[in-house]
Protein backbone atom coordinates (compact mmCIF):
# COMPACT_ATOMS: atom_id res chain seq x y z
CA UNK A 1 0.00 0.00 0.00
CA UNK A 2 1.39 3.38 -0.99
CA UNK A 3 0.86 6.32 1.30
CA UNK A 4 1.23 9.93 0.20
CA UNK A 5 1.34 13.12 2.23
CA UNK A 6 -1.31 15.67 1.39
CA UNK A 7 0.34 18.72 -0.23
CA UNK A 8 -2.76 20.90 0.19
CA UNK A 9 -4.21 23.07 2.92
CA UNK A 10 -6.34 20.03 3.88
CA UNK A 11 -9.53 22.06 3.65
CA UNK A 12 -11.03 19.57 1.25
CA UNK A 13 -11.85 15.96 2.16
CA UNK A 14 -8.94 13.62 1.48
CA UNK A 15 -11.12 11.17 -0.40
CA UNK A 16 -11.83 11.59 -4.05
CA UNK A 17 -15.44 12.49 -4.80
CA UNK A 18 -17.63 9.85 -6.39
CA UNK A 19 -18.27 10.13 -10.10
CA UNK A 20 -21.23 12.35 -10.89
CA UNK A 21 -24.53 10.43 -10.97
CA UNK A 22 -26.61 10.66 -14.16
CA UNK A 23 -29.67 12.85 -13.72
CA UNK A 24 -31.75 10.31 -15.61
CA UNK A 25 -31.20 6.84 -17.04
CA UNK A 26 -33.02 7.69 -20.28
CA UNK A 27 -31.03 6.61 -23.32
CA UNK A 28 -28.08 5.31 -21.31
CA UNK A 29 -26.30 1.99 -21.56
CA UNK A 30 -26.25 0.26 -18.20
CA UNK A 31 -23.59 -2.27 -17.28
CA UNK A 32 -24.53 -5.04 -14.88
CA UNK A 33 -21.52 -6.44 -13.09
CA UNK A 34 -21.84 -9.83 -11.48
CA UNK A 35 -19.07 -10.14 -8.91
CA UNK A 36 -19.35 -13.95 -9.14
CA UNK A 37 -20.93 -14.45 -5.75
CA UNK A 38 -23.74 -16.96 -5.39
CA UNK A 39 -27.13 -15.83 -6.68
CA UNK A 40 -25.82 -12.50 -7.89
CA UNK A 41 -26.88 -13.58 -11.37
CA UNK A 42 -30.49 -14.10 -10.22
CA UNK A 43 -30.61 -10.60 -8.82
CA UNK A 44 -29.07 -9.11 -11.93
CA UNK A 45 -31.36 -11.08 -14.26
CA UNK A 46 -34.31 -9.39 -12.57
CA UNK A 47 -32.65 -5.96 -12.74
CA UNK A 48 -31.91 -6.53 -16.43
CA UNK A 49 -35.54 -7.44 -17.10
CA UNK A 50 -36.75 -4.22 -15.49
CA UNK A 51 -34.21 -1.99 -17.21
CA UNK A 52 -34.88 -3.56 -20.59
CA UNK A 53 -38.61 -3.10 -20.04
CA UNK A 54 -37.88 0.63 -19.61
CA UNK A 55 -36.20 0.61 -23.01
CA UNK A 56 -32.63 0.82 -21.73
CA UNK A 57 -29.70 -1.01 -23.24
CA UNK A 58 -28.10 -3.47 -20.82
CA UNK A 59 -24.66 -5.07 -21.09
CA UNK A 60 -23.68 -7.90 -18.73
CA UNK A 61 -20.23 -8.41 -17.16
CA UNK A 62 -18.84 -10.90 -14.70
CA UNK A 63 -15.73 -10.83 -12.53
CA UNK A 64 -13.60 -14.01 -12.58
CA UNK A 65 -13.81 -14.22 -8.79
CA UNK A 66 -15.41 -12.22 -6.02
CA UNK A 67 -12.27 -12.48 -3.89
CA UNK A 68 -10.23 -10.10 -6.01
CA UNK A 69 -10.78 -6.66 -7.48
CA UNK A 70 -12.06 -6.57 -11.03
CA UNK A 71 -9.19 -6.96 -13.52
CA UNK A 72 -8.05 -3.76 -15.19
CA UNK A 73 -9.20 -4.95 -18.62
CA UNK A 74 -12.70 -5.59 -17.35
CA UNK A 75 -12.88 -2.14 -15.77
CA UNK A 76 -11.76 -0.56 -19.03
CA UNK A 77 -14.34 -2.56 -20.95
CA UNK A 78 -17.13 -1.44 -18.63
CA UNK A 79 -15.99 2.18 -18.82
CA UNK A 80 -15.83 2.02 -22.61
CA UNK A 81 -19.25 0.51 -23.18
CA UNK A 82 -21.41 1.85 -20.37
CA UNK A 83 -22.70 5.13 -19.01
CA UNK A 84 -23.47 3.63 -15.60
CA UNK A 85 -22.88 0.36 -13.84
CA UNK A 86 -24.82 -1.63 -11.28
CA UNK A 87 -22.78 -4.07 -9.26
CA UNK A 88 -24.50 -7.01 -7.58
CA UNK A 89 -23.40 -7.92 -4.11
CA UNK A 90 -25.31 -11.10 -3.36
CA UNK A 91 -25.37 -14.24 -1.28
Amino acid at each position, binding site marked *: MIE*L*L*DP*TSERQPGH*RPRAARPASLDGLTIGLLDIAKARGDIFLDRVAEQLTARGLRVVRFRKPTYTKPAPADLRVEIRTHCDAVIEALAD
Partner: protein
Amino acid sequence: MRVLVYINSAQRRPRVLRTLGRVSLPEGLVCFVKADCPTCQMVQPVLRQLAAVDAALTVYTQDDPTFPAGTAPVDDTLLEVSYRQRIEIVPTLLRVVGGKPVERLEGWDRREWERLTGINGLGDGLPAFRPGCGSRTLDIGMPEILAMRYDGSRIRSRRIELGAQEDEVEATFARGWSDGLPLVPPTPPRVLRMLEGTSRDPQDVVAVVPPDLVECTVEKVAVNAVMAGCRPEYLPVVLAAVEAACTEAFNIHGILATTYFVGPVVIVNGPIAREIGMNSGINALGQGNRANATIGRALQLVIRNVGGGRPGEIDRATLGNPGKYTFCFAEAEDTSPWESLSVERGLPPGTSAVTLFAGSGVQPFFDQLARTPEALARSLAACLRVVGHPKWGLAWDALCVISPEHGRVFREAGWSKARLRDELGSILTFPGAEMVKGAGGIAEGMPELAVGATVAKFRPGGLLFAHAGGTAGLFSAIIAGWVSGPAGTEPVTQEIRR
Protein backbone atom coordinates in the same frame (compact mmCIF):
# COMPACT_ATOMS: atom_id res chain seq x y z
CA MET B 1 9.05 14.63 28.63
CA ARG B 2 10.41 11.14 29.11
CA VAL B 3 13.97 10.51 30.15
CA LEU B 4 15.32 7.05 29.68
CA VAL B 5 18.69 6.02 30.99
CA TYR B 6 20.20 2.99 29.38
CA ILE B 7 22.50 1.12 31.71
CA ASN B 8 25.35 -0.88 30.34
CA SER B 9 25.33 -4.04 32.41
CA ALA B 10 29.10 -4.49 32.31
CA GLN B 11 29.99 -1.15 33.80
CA ARG B 12 26.75 -0.02 35.42
CA ARG B 13 27.18 3.48 34.16
CA PRO B 14 24.71 5.49 32.12
CA ARG B 15 25.52 5.12 28.47
CA VAL B 16 22.84 6.98 26.60
CA LEU B 17 20.67 9.77 27.84
CA ARG B 18 17.59 10.24 25.77
CA THR B 19 15.54 13.38 26.08
CA LEU B 20 12.66 14.52 23.91
CA GLY B 21 13.57 12.04 21.21
CA ARG B 22 17.13 13.28 20.97
CA VAL B 23 20.07 11.17 22.00
CA SER B 24 22.84 12.71 24.06
CA LEU B 25 26.10 10.88 23.84
CA PRO B 26 28.19 9.78 26.81
CA GLU B 27 31.06 12.10 27.67
CA GLY B 28 34.55 11.43 26.42
CA LEU B 29 35.36 9.36 23.37
CA VAL B 30 32.72 7.60 21.29
CA CYS B 31 33.40 5.28 18.39
CA PHE B 32 30.93 3.79 15.88
CA VAL B 33 31.96 0.49 14.30
CA LYS B 34 30.65 -2.57 12.50
CA ALA B 35 32.18 -6.04 12.47
CA ASP B 36 31.69 -6.21 8.72
CA CYS B 37 34.25 -3.44 8.17
CA PRO B 38 37.92 -4.47 7.69
CA THR B 39 39.15 -1.14 9.06
CA CYS B 40 37.03 -1.59 12.20
CA GLN B 41 38.48 -5.10 12.55
CA MET B 42 41.96 -3.64 12.15
CA VAL B 43 41.53 -0.96 14.84
CA GLN B 44 40.21 -3.40 17.49
CA PRO B 45 43.52 -3.31 19.40
CA VAL B 46 43.40 0.49 19.41
CA LEU B 47 39.87 0.48 20.81
CA ARG B 48 40.90 -2.01 23.50
CA GLN B 49 43.93 0.17 24.25
CA LEU B 50 41.71 3.24 24.66
CA ALA B 51 39.24 1.33 26.82
CA ALA B 52 42.08 0.03 29.00
CA VAL B 53 43.54 3.44 29.79
CA ASP B 54 40.15 4.52 31.09
CA ALA B 55 39.84 7.13 28.41
CA ALA B 56 36.05 7.01 28.80
CA LEU B 57 35.60 5.27 25.46
CA THR B 58 32.15 4.08 24.44
CA VAL B 59 31.90 1.89 21.36
CA TYR B 60 28.61 1.61 19.46
CA THR B 61 28.41 -1.44 17.26
CA GLN B 62 26.09 -1.51 14.27
CA ASP B 63 25.96 -5.22 13.47
CA ASP B 64 27.52 -7.68 15.94
CA PRO B 65 26.68 -6.68 19.54
CA THR B 66 29.77 -8.51 20.83
CA PHE B 67 32.16 -6.66 18.53
CA PRO B 68 34.80 -5.56 19.32
CA ALA B 69 35.51 -7.92 22.19
CA GLY B 70 36.94 -6.36 25.33
CA THR B 71 35.39 -2.91 24.86
CA ALA B 72 31.94 -3.51 26.39
CA PRO B 73 30.27 -2.33 23.16
CA VAL B 74 26.82 -0.76 23.18
CA ASP B 75 24.33 -2.51 20.91
CA ASP B 76 23.27 -0.12 18.15
CA THR B 77 22.01 -2.77 15.75
CA LEU B 78 18.73 -0.82 15.53
CA LEU B 79 20.94 2.09 14.40
CA GLU B 80 19.13 4.76 16.37
CA VAL B 81 22.26 6.38 17.78
CA SER B 82 24.13 6.05 14.48
CA TYR B 83 21.16 7.60 12.67
CA ARG B 84 20.78 10.50 15.06
CA GLN B 85 24.51 11.22 14.96
CA ARG B 86 24.42 11.09 11.14
CA ILE B 87 27.22 8.55 10.99
CA GLU B 88 28.29 7.98 7.39
CA ILE B 89 31.55 6.07 7.81
CA VAL B 90 32.76 3.43 10.24
CA PRO B 91 34.87 3.73 12.20
CA THR B 92 33.85 7.26 13.24
CA LEU B 93 35.57 8.56 16.36
CA LEU B 94 33.93 11.44 18.23
CA ARG B 95 35.03 13.55 21.14
CA VAL B 96 31.95 14.42 23.17
CA VAL B 97 31.54 17.34 25.53
CA GLY B 98 28.25 18.14 27.19
CA GLY B 99 26.52 15.33 25.29
CA LYS B 100 27.47 16.73 21.91
CA PRO B 101 30.27 15.83 19.52
CA VAL B 102 32.88 18.57 19.29
CA GLU B 103 35.29 16.67 17.04
CA ARG B 104 34.80 13.90 14.50
CA LEU B 105 37.21 11.62 12.65
CA GLU B 106 36.26 9.12 9.96
CA GLY B 107 38.34 6.08 9.13
CA TRP B 108 41.74 5.37 10.71
CA ASP B 109 44.47 7.99 10.75
CA ARG B 110 46.99 7.39 13.53
CA ARG B 111 48.20 10.98 13.82
CA GLU B 112 44.66 12.35 13.92
CA TRP B 113 43.46 9.71 16.39
CA GLU B 114 46.44 10.50 18.66
CA ARG B 115 45.68 14.19 18.45
CA LEU B 116 41.97 13.75 19.19
CA THR B 117 42.52 11.29 22.08
CA GLY B 118 45.60 13.00 23.45
CA ILE B 119 47.23 9.56 23.68
CA ASN B 120 50.42 8.75 21.81
CA GLY B 121 51.55 5.36 20.56
CA LEU B 122 48.17 4.21 19.25
CA GLY B 123 48.00 1.16 17.00
CA ASP B 124 51.63 0.09 16.89
CA GLY B 125 52.23 -2.00 13.82
CA LEU B 126 49.14 -0.74 12.00
CA PRO B 127 49.39 1.26 8.80
CA ALA B 128 49.33 5.00 9.40
CA PHE B 129 46.12 5.48 7.47
CA ARG B 130 43.22 3.42 6.23
CA PRO B 131 39.83 4.68 5.05
CA GLY B 132 36.71 3.27 6.67
CA CYS B 133 33.60 1.64 5.23
CA GLY B 134 30.07 2.93 4.73
CA SER B 135 27.90 3.09 7.83
CA ARG B 136 24.98 0.64 7.91
CA THR B 137 22.70 3.68 8.15
CA LEU B 138 23.49 4.29 4.49
CA ASP B 139 22.79 0.77 3.21
CA ILE B 140 20.44 0.81 0.25
CA GLY B 141 16.91 1.54 1.47
CA MET B 142 18.06 2.07 5.06
CA PRO B 143 17.88 5.90 5.19
CA GLU B 144 14.16 5.70 4.41
CA ILE B 145 13.54 2.95 6.98
CA LEU B 146 15.40 4.87 9.69
CA ALA B 147 13.75 8.17 8.84
CA MET B 148 10.34 6.57 9.25
CA ARG B 149 11.37 4.67 12.37
CA TYR B 150 12.93 7.57 14.26
CA ASP B 151 11.58 10.74 12.67
CA GLY B 152 8.16 9.70 11.34
CA SER B 153 6.37 11.69 14.04
CA ARG B 154 7.95 14.93 12.83
CA ILE B 155 5.50 15.13 9.96
CA ARG B 156 1.84 15.90 10.42
CA SER B 157 0.33 16.20 6.95
CA ARG B 158 -2.75 14.14 6.31
CA ARG B 159 -1.81 10.70 4.99
CA ILE B 160 -3.61 9.57 1.89
CA GLU B 161 -3.70 5.84 1.26
CA LEU B 162 -3.81 4.83 -2.37
CA GLY B 163 -5.75 1.86 -3.58
CA ALA B 164 -3.77 -1.27 -4.35
CA GLN B 165 -4.34 -0.83 -8.07
CA GLU B 166 -3.91 2.93 -8.13
CA ASP B 167 -0.87 4.25 -10.00
CA GLU B 168 0.84 6.71 -7.69
CA VAL B 169 1.69 9.25 -10.39
CA GLU B 170 -1.80 9.11 -11.88
CA ALA B 171 -3.14 9.51 -8.34
CA THR B 172 -1.40 12.89 -7.99
CA PHE B 173 -3.05 14.07 -11.22
CA ALA B 174 -6.43 12.72 -10.16
CA ARG B 175 -6.31 14.66 -6.93
CA GLY B 176 -5.60 17.93 -8.71
CA TRP B 177 -2.12 18.52 -7.31
CA SER B 178 -0.29 18.81 -10.63
CA ASP B 179 0.59 21.85 -12.74
CA GLY B 180 0.08 19.59 -15.76
CA LEU B 181 3.43 17.81 -15.63
CA PRO B 182 4.08 14.59 -13.72
CA LEU B 183 4.87 14.94 -10.04
CA VAL B 184 7.14 12.93 -7.77
CA PRO B 185 4.71 11.19 -5.38
CA PRO B 186 5.20 12.78 -1.93
CA THR B 187 5.72 9.69 0.21
CA PRO B 188 6.62 10.18 3.89
CA PRO B 189 10.25 8.98 3.44
CA ARG B 190 10.78 11.42 0.56
CA VAL B 191 9.36 14.29 2.60
CA LEU B 192 11.52 13.39 5.60
CA ARG B 193 14.55 13.35 3.34
CA MET B 194 13.53 16.76 1.94
CA LEU B 195 13.27 18.16 5.47
CA GLU B 196 16.93 17.25 5.99
CA GLY B 197 17.66 20.20 3.71
CA THR B 198 16.80 22.75 6.38
CA SER B 199 17.52 23.23 10.06
CA ARG B 200 14.06 24.75 10.51
CA ASP B 201 11.39 22.91 12.44
CA PRO B 202 8.89 21.22 10.10
CA GLN B 203 6.02 22.95 11.88
CA ASP B 204 7.46 26.48 11.57
CA VAL B 205 5.07 28.68 9.64
CA VAL B 206 6.83 30.05 6.58
CA ALA B 207 4.12 32.33 5.23
CA VAL B 208 0.40 32.86 4.90
CA VAL B 209 -0.28 31.81 1.32
CA PRO B 210 -2.89 33.53 -0.88
CA PRO B 211 -5.45 33.26 -2.22
CA ASP B 212 -6.94 31.12 0.57
CA LEU B 213 -4.63 32.77 3.16
CA VAL B 214 -3.45 29.48 4.58
CA GLU B 215 -0.63 29.23 7.11
CA CYS B 216 2.02 27.21 5.32
CA THR B 217 4.53 25.20 7.34
CA VAL B 218 8.05 24.16 6.36
CA GLU B 219 6.60 20.65 6.05
CA LYS B 220 3.97 21.68 3.49
CA VAL B 221 6.64 23.43 1.46
CA ALA B 222 8.72 20.25 1.67
CA VAL B 223 5.81 18.11 0.42
CA ASN B 224 5.40 20.36 -2.60
CA ALA B 225 9.17 20.55 -3.15
CA VAL B 226 9.25 16.74 -3.31
CA MET B 227 6.48 16.80 -5.91
CA ALA B 228 8.32 19.45 -7.93
CA GLY B 229 11.42 17.23 -8.07
CA CYS B 230 13.67 19.25 -5.74
CA ARG B 231 16.65 17.83 -3.94
CA PRO B 232 16.81 18.52 -0.17
CA GLU B 233 19.57 21.10 -0.57
CA TYR B 234 17.23 23.24 -2.68
CA LEU B 235 14.66 23.50 0.12
CA PRO B 236 16.12 26.64 1.79
CA VAL B 237 15.83 28.45 -1.56
CA VAL B 238 12.22 27.34 -1.99
CA LEU B 239 11.41 28.43 1.58
CA ALA B 240 12.88 31.88 0.95
CA ALA B 241 11.00 32.16 -2.34
CA VAL B 242 7.69 31.26 -0.67
CA GLU B 243 8.36 33.77 2.08
CA ALA B 244 9.18 36.53 -0.42
CA ALA B 245 6.21 35.72 -2.67
CA CYS B 246 3.73 35.98 0.20
CA THR B 247 4.77 39.44 1.34
CA GLU B 248 2.34 42.33 1.02
CA ALA B 249 4.86 44.06 -1.26
CA PHE B 250 5.18 41.24 -3.77
CA ASN B 251 1.45 40.58 -3.80
CA ILE B 252 1.27 37.05 -5.13
CA HIS B 253 -2.52 37.20 -4.78
CA GLY B 254 -2.76 39.90 -7.42
CA ILE B 255 -0.14 38.24 -9.61
CA LEU B 256 -2.20 35.08 -9.51
CA ALA B 257 -5.63 36.60 -9.92
CA THR B 258 -4.91 39.06 -12.73
CA THR B 259 -5.90 38.44 -16.31
CA TYR B 260 -2.36 39.62 -17.24
CA PHE B 261 0.50 37.24 -18.21
CA VAL B 262 2.51 37.58 -15.04
CA GLY B 263 4.05 34.98 -12.73
CA PRO B 264 6.86 34.94 -10.16
CA VAL B 265 10.46 35.00 -11.45
CA VAL B 266 13.07 33.85 -8.91
CA ILE B 267 16.64 35.16 -9.20
CA VAL B 268 19.14 33.44 -6.88
CA ASN B 269 22.28 35.17 -5.60
CA GLY B 270 25.13 34.19 -3.32
CA PRO B 271 27.13 31.03 -2.66
CA ILE B 272 24.14 28.68 -2.47
CA ALA B 273 23.55 29.01 -6.22
CA ARG B 274 26.85 27.32 -7.01
CA GLU B 275 26.59 24.87 -4.11
CA ILE B 276 23.35 23.42 -5.41
CA GLY B 277 24.47 23.48 -9.03
CA MET B 278 22.22 26.18 -10.44
CA ASN B 279 22.65 27.39 -13.98
CA SER B 280 23.60 31.00 -14.62
CA GLY B 281 25.31 30.33 -17.95
CA ILE B 282 24.25 28.86 -21.28
CA ASN B 283 20.43 28.71 -21.51
CA ALA B 284 20.12 30.16 -17.99
CA LEU B 285 16.48 31.10 -18.59
CA GLY B 286 15.71 27.82 -20.32
CA GLN B 287 15.31 24.15 -19.55
CA GLY B 288 17.78 21.50 -18.49
CA ASN B 289 18.95 22.31 -14.97
CA ARG B 290 17.24 20.51 -12.12
CA ALA B 291 17.65 23.24 -9.50
CA ASN B 292 16.49 26.05 -11.79
CA ALA B 293 13.56 23.99 -12.99
CA THR B 294 12.30 22.56 -9.72
CA ILE B 295 12.75 25.53 -7.38
CA GLY B 296 10.52 27.74 -9.50
CA ARG B 297 8.07 24.89 -9.91
CA ALA B 298 7.95 24.18 -6.17
CA LEU B 299 6.98 27.79 -5.49
CA GLN B 300 4.13 27.55 -7.98
CA LEU B 301 2.97 24.24 -6.53
CA VAL B 302 2.81 25.80 -3.05
CA ILE B 303 0.63 28.58 -4.46
CA ARG B 304 -1.55 26.00 -6.18
CA ASN B 305 -1.89 23.39 -3.48
CA VAL B 306 -1.52 25.25 -0.21
CA GLY B 307 -2.88 28.61 -1.32
CA GLY B 308 -5.54 27.11 -3.55
CA GLY B 309 -4.54 29.24 -6.56
CA ARG B 310 -5.53 27.30 -9.65
CA PRO B 311 -6.01 28.43 -13.26
CA GLY B 312 -9.64 28.93 -14.13
CA GLU B 313 -10.49 29.52 -10.49
CA ILE B 314 -8.64 32.41 -8.82
CA ASP B 315 -5.98 32.45 -11.57
CA ARG B 316 -7.82 34.30 -14.36
CA ALA B 317 -4.91 34.83 -16.78
CA THR B 318 -6.09 35.44 -20.33
CA LEU B 319 -3.03 33.72 -21.79
CA GLY B 320 -0.49 33.29 -19.00
CA ASN B 321 3.09 32.54 -19.95
CA PRO B 322 5.26 29.41 -19.95
CA GLY B 323 7.24 30.81 -17.01
CA LYS B 324 4.25 30.05 -14.82
CA TYR B 325 5.39 26.41 -14.77
CA THR B 326 8.72 27.57 -13.42
CA PHE B 327 10.97 30.60 -13.85
CA CYS B 328 14.10 30.56 -11.76
CA PHE B 329 17.76 31.20 -12.50
CA ALA B 330 20.99 32.20 -10.79
CA GLU B 331 22.91 35.39 -11.46
CA ALA B 332 26.42 34.89 -12.93
CA GLU B 333 28.14 36.93 -10.25
CA ASP B 334 31.71 35.95 -11.09
CA THR B 335 31.62 37.38 -14.58
CA SER B 336 29.26 40.26 -13.94
CA PRO B 337 30.38 43.80 -14.77
CA TRP B 338 28.40 44.96 -11.73
CA GLU B 339 27.51 44.28 -8.11
CA SER B 340 24.92 41.52 -7.89
CA LEU B 341 21.18 42.12 -7.78
CA SER B 342 20.91 41.19 -4.08
CA VAL B 343 23.87 43.40 -3.12
CA GLU B 344 22.41 46.31 -5.04
CA ARG B 345 19.19 45.70 -3.14
CA GLY B 346 20.93 46.00 0.21
CA LEU B 347 22.25 42.59 1.29
CA PRO B 348 25.92 42.11 2.18
CA PRO B 349 28.12 40.42 -0.46
CA GLY B 350 28.37 36.67 0.08
CA THR B 351 24.80 36.42 1.37
CA SER B 352 22.60 33.85 -0.33
CA ALA B 353 19.30 35.38 -1.34
CA VAL B 354 16.36 35.20 -3.67
CA THR B 355 14.85 38.17 -5.43
CA LEU B 356 11.32 37.77 -6.72
CA PHE B 357 10.19 39.74 -9.71
CA ALA B 358 6.74 39.60 -11.24
CA GLY B 359 7.57 38.73 -14.83
CA SER B 360 5.48 38.36 -17.94
CA GLY B 361 7.80 36.34 -20.14
CA VAL B 362 10.99 36.95 -22.05
CA GLN B 363 11.38 39.56 -24.77
CA PRO B 364 14.63 39.22 -26.72
CA PHE B 365 16.90 42.26 -27.07
CA PHE B 366 19.11 41.91 -30.14
CA ASP B 367 22.07 44.19 -30.88
CA GLN B 368 25.15 42.82 -32.62
CA LEU B 369 26.62 46.11 -33.80
CA ALA B 370 26.87 48.47 -30.82
CA ARG B 371 30.48 48.74 -29.61
CA THR B 372 30.02 51.71 -27.28
CA PRO B 373 27.89 51.81 -24.15
CA GLU B 374 26.05 54.85 -25.49
CA ALA B 375 24.96 53.01 -28.63
CA LEU B 376 24.03 49.87 -26.69
CA ALA B 377 22.04 51.89 -24.15
CA ARG B 378 20.09 53.66 -26.91
CA SER B 379 19.38 50.34 -28.54
CA LEU B 380 18.26 48.74 -25.28
CA ALA B 381 16.08 51.76 -24.53
CA ALA B 382 14.28 51.41 -27.86
CA CYS B 383 13.37 47.84 -26.98
CA LEU B 384 12.44 48.72 -23.40
CA ARG B 385 9.97 51.31 -24.64
CA VAL B 386 7.58 48.58 -25.74
CA VAL B 387 7.33 46.96 -22.29
CA GLY B 388 3.58 46.63 -21.80
CA HIS B 389 2.85 49.25 -24.44
CA PRO B 390 5.07 51.93 -26.05
CA LYS B 391 2.56 54.63 -25.16
CA TRP B 392 2.51 53.84 -21.45
CA GLY B 393 4.99 55.08 -18.85
CA LEU B 394 5.35 54.41 -15.10
CA ALA B 395 3.06 51.43 -15.39
CA TRP B 396 5.32 48.36 -15.58
CA ASP B 397 8.76 47.50 -14.21
CA ALA B 398 11.28 45.51 -16.21
CA LEU B 399 14.14 43.18 -15.41
CA CYS B 400 17.00 43.21 -17.91
CA VAL B 401 19.13 40.09 -17.98
CA ILE B 402 22.35 41.32 -19.52
CA SER B 403 24.45 38.65 -21.22
CA PRO B 404 28.25 38.41 -21.00
CA GLU B 405 28.90 39.86 -24.46
CA HIS B 406 26.67 42.87 -23.84
CA GLY B 407 28.00 43.18 -20.28
CA ARG B 408 31.54 43.39 -21.64
CA VAL B 409 30.67 46.60 -23.54
CA PHE B 410 29.60 48.28 -20.30
CA ARG B 411 32.49 46.87 -18.25
CA GLU B 412 35.17 47.94 -20.71
CA ALA B 413 33.74 51.45 -20.79
CA GLY B 414 33.56 51.56 -16.99
CA TRP B 415 29.81 52.04 -16.88
CA SER B 416 28.29 51.19 -13.53
CA LYS B 417 24.77 49.85 -13.23
CA ALA B 418 23.67 53.22 -11.87
CA ARG B 419 25.19 54.98 -14.88
CA LEU B 420 23.35 52.71 -17.29
CA ARG B 421 20.11 53.22 -15.40
CA ASP B 422 20.55 57.02 -15.52
CA GLU B 423 21.30 56.99 -19.24
CA LEU B 424 18.28 54.82 -19.95
CA GLY B 425 16.15 57.08 -17.78
CA SER B 426 17.14 60.11 -19.86
CA ILE B 427 16.47 58.36 -23.14
CA LEU B 428 13.20 56.87 -21.96
CA THR B 429 11.50 60.16 -21.16
CA PHE B 430 8.87 61.26 -23.65
CA PRO B 431 6.63 64.24 -24.28
CA GLY B 432 3.21 63.41 -22.84
CA ALA B 433 1.61 64.46 -26.13
CA GLU B 434 3.12 61.35 -27.77
CA MET B 435 1.82 59.08 -25.03
CA VAL B 436 -1.81 60.06 -24.58
CA LYS B 437 -4.80 58.15 -25.85
CA GLY B 438 -5.33 58.61 -29.56
CA ALA B 439 -1.85 60.02 -30.27
CA GLY B 440 -0.24 58.51 -33.34
CA GLY B 441 -3.56 57.03 -34.39
CA ILE B 442 -3.37 54.52 -31.54
CA ALA B 443 -6.35 54.49 -29.21
CA GLU B 444 -4.38 53.02 -26.31
CA GLY B 445 -2.32 55.42 -24.23
CA MET B 446 -2.08 57.49 -21.09
CA PRO B 447 -4.83 59.82 -19.81
CA GLU B 448 -5.21 63.27 -21.40
CA LEU B 449 -3.72 65.02 -18.37
CA ALA B 450 -0.27 63.79 -19.46
CA VAL B 451 -0.39 66.04 -22.54
CA GLY B 452 1.61 68.93 -21.13
CA ALA B 453 4.01 66.80 -19.08
CA THR B 454 7.02 64.66 -19.82
CA VAL B 455 6.57 61.01 -19.01
CA ALA B 456 9.22 58.57 -17.79
CA LYS B 457 8.87 55.01 -19.04
CA PHE B 458 9.99 53.55 -15.71
CA ARG B 459 9.42 54.67 -12.16
CA PRO B 460 12.52 55.14 -9.94
CA GLY B 461 13.69 51.65 -9.00
CA GLY B 462 11.52 50.12 -11.69
CA LEU B 463 14.38 48.94 -13.86
CA LEU B 464 16.32 45.95 -12.57
CA PHE B 465 19.48 44.34 -13.93
CA ALA B 466 20.93 40.89 -13.53
CA HIS B 467 23.82 39.22 -15.33
CA ALA B 468 23.49 35.75 -16.82
CA GLY B 469 23.85 33.75 -19.99
CA GLY B 470 26.29 31.94 -22.24
CA THR B 471 29.50 33.60 -23.36
CA ALA B 472 28.49 33.73 -27.02
CA GLY B 473 25.63 35.89 -28.24
CA LEU B 474 25.11 39.63 -28.45
CA PHE B 475 21.62 39.29 -27.03
CA SER B 476 20.10 40.14 -23.69
CA ALA B 477 16.66 39.52 -22.25
CA ILE B 478 13.97 41.92 -21.17
CA ILE B 479 11.53 40.44 -18.70
CA ALA B 480 8.56 42.76 -18.63
CA GLY B 481 6.75 43.22 -15.35
CA TRP B 482 3.23 43.93 -14.20
CA VAL B 483 1.44 46.84 -12.50
CA SER B 484 4.26 48.29 -10.42
CA GLY B 485 4.43 49.83 -7.00
CA PRO B 486 1.98 49.70 -4.11
CA ALA B 487 -0.95 49.29 -6.50
CA GLY B 488 0.58 46.12 -7.91
CA THR B 489 3.89 44.49 -7.11
CA GLU B 490 7.32 45.43 -5.79
CA PRO B 491 10.37 43.21 -6.33
CA VAL B 492 11.27 41.54 -3.03
CA THR B 493 14.69 40.29 -1.92
CA GLN B 494 14.84 37.71 0.85
CA GLU B 495 17.88 36.22 2.54
CA ILE B 496 18.07 32.41 2.38
CA ARG B 497 18.24 30.76 5.78
CA ARG B 498 19.64 27.22 5.87
